[in-house]
């Protein structure tokens, strides 16, 4: 009898500022290619941001694009790409048994800010407030738009987990499969955040918005001169299945989710707590039934805030000590902070390591901060290693939410 308690990834769809599928994304990571640039915003003028250039009309008609949200558009693109990648035929699977679980940091800000900007031109006359506002701003909209587009009639919702949300989407998909509520999960996270101005303004006033003459060098986790976050959009949706189902249809298996954990700092609205982050990683290791020395790659959260990076490095030191085989990297250095998508996107960028045994680097580390000088931190050049069996992905968010996910190279 096939073990139904094992959950595997069988399809990946993504869009990042430096790639619109896993091949492109991975190539960019190994080549040190950033995707960050500049965009115009209401009230803030030009800002540094990571923006995606996937073709939204690949899977949507113009009307859908007009009616929906950017996050929805990103979700639709990633969902279709993931399904195609998994070689599942959507027309022949039971769509009532597919669940959509997407992590988001926020939703509704873009639409609301846009509407206020619009009616300002009409002296704030609310008779001109869009009747589309409510369906665009309900928090489930990004996932709901996928159901409208694909005809999927299983459960759909988003998970609000701040910058930990991408991991939470994957965890939720896994849990729903284990419960038997669905047979397929489209799980991951999305972000449309650069299209707000408020997030930029708030980060700036908080002293947490990155600045640099060269946008591609603005996101500098672990660098001595790092000065904050680059706000980015992106999406990553994975097809998750129970192992038995994946084997039965001879699916390509990218990896197996073997451990995960979520916890709360209960500490501060914004500041991180290294002790709780360490506890989170330890909980994930315990769930996976492995020890810290089994981890080959840690993909850090590392947003390039002075305090955030320091805390995470402290937490990693506590859990992993001086493990000689645990390599550490960071994806936000390339693409900025893709908010709700970050957990999932940054994880999948490392999955090809199971096959090619290369740990992608962290870019923009010109002067490593001594407080972030972790053993085996891979910076500026990729690192070839003997094997990669376990990847741990960290994602932490405001209000002190922490998540850790462990994926193992698939072996029957």
């Amino acid at each position: 009898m096939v073990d139904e308690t094992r959950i595997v990834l069988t399809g990946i769809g993504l869009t990042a500022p430096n790639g619109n599928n896993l091949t492109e994304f991975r190539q960019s990571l190994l080549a040190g290619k950033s995707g960050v640039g500049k965009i115009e915003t209401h009230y803030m003028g030009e800002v540094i941001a990571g923006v995606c250039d996937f073709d939204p009309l690949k899977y949507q008609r113009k009307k859908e694009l007009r009616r929906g949200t950017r996050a929805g558009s990103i979700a639709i693109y990633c969902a279709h790409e993931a399904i195609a990648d998994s070689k599942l035929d959507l027309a022949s699977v039971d769509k009532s048994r597919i669940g959509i679980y997407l992590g988001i940091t926020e939703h509704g800000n873009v639409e609301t800010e846009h509407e206020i900007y619009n009616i300002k031109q009409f002296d704030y006359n609310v008779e001109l407030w869009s009747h589309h506002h409510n369906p665009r701003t309900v928090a489930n909209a990004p996932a709901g738009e996928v159901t409208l587009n694909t005809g999927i009639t299983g459960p759909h919702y988003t998970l609000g987990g701040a910058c930990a949300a991408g991991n939470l989407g994957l965890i939720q998909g896994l849990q729903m499969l284990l419960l038997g509520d669905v047979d397929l999960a489209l799980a991951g996270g999305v972000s449309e955040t650069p299209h707000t101005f408020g997030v930029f303004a708030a980060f700036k006033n908080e002293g947490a918005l990155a600045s640099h003459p060269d946008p591609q060098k603005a996101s500098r986790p672990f660098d001595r001169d790092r000065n904050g976050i680059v706000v980015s959009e992106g999406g990553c949706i994975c097809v998750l299945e129970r192992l038995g189902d994946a084997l039965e249809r001879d699916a390509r298996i990218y990896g197996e989710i073997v451990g995960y954990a979520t916890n709360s700092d209960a500490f501060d609205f914004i500041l991180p707590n290294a002790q709780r982050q360490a506890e989170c990683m330890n909980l994930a290791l315990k769930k996976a039934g492995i020890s810290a020395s089994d981890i080959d790659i840690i993909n850090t959260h590392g947003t390039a805030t002075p305090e955030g990076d320091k805390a995470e490095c402290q937490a990693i030191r506590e859990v992993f000590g001086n493990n000689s085989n645990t390599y550490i990297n960071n994806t936000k250095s390339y693409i900025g902070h893709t908010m709700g998508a970050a957990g999932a996107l940054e994880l999948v960028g490392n999955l090809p390591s199971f096959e090619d045994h290369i740990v992608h680097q962290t870019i923009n580390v010109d002067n490593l901060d001594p407080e972030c000088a972790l053993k085996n931190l891979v910076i500026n050049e990729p690192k070839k290693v003997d094997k990669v069996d376990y990847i741990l992905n960290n994602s932490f968010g405001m209000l002190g939410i922490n998540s850790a996910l462990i994926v193992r190279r698939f072996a029957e």
Partner: protein
Amino acid sequence: MKAEEIRSMILEVIHEIVPDEDLSNLKGDVRIRDQIEMDSMDFLDIIMELRKRYSITVPEDDYMKLSTLDSSVAYLEPLMTDI
């Protein structure tokens, strides 16, 4: 605005709302929503556009008068003589 200009304006507004539809053969005397894919929210977009562009408020009781292209032009023409 004259009748022909109003007709063009309505077609332009509809095109913005349903950009995938081919409006070149839209019949003037047949219900618009029977010819192209437009739902009630799309229809409200037309109402909103009239309000935004021309400060014309169409009361809910008059919505039926905008069901065809011809009836829409007939309804709007007296309201748009000074525009």
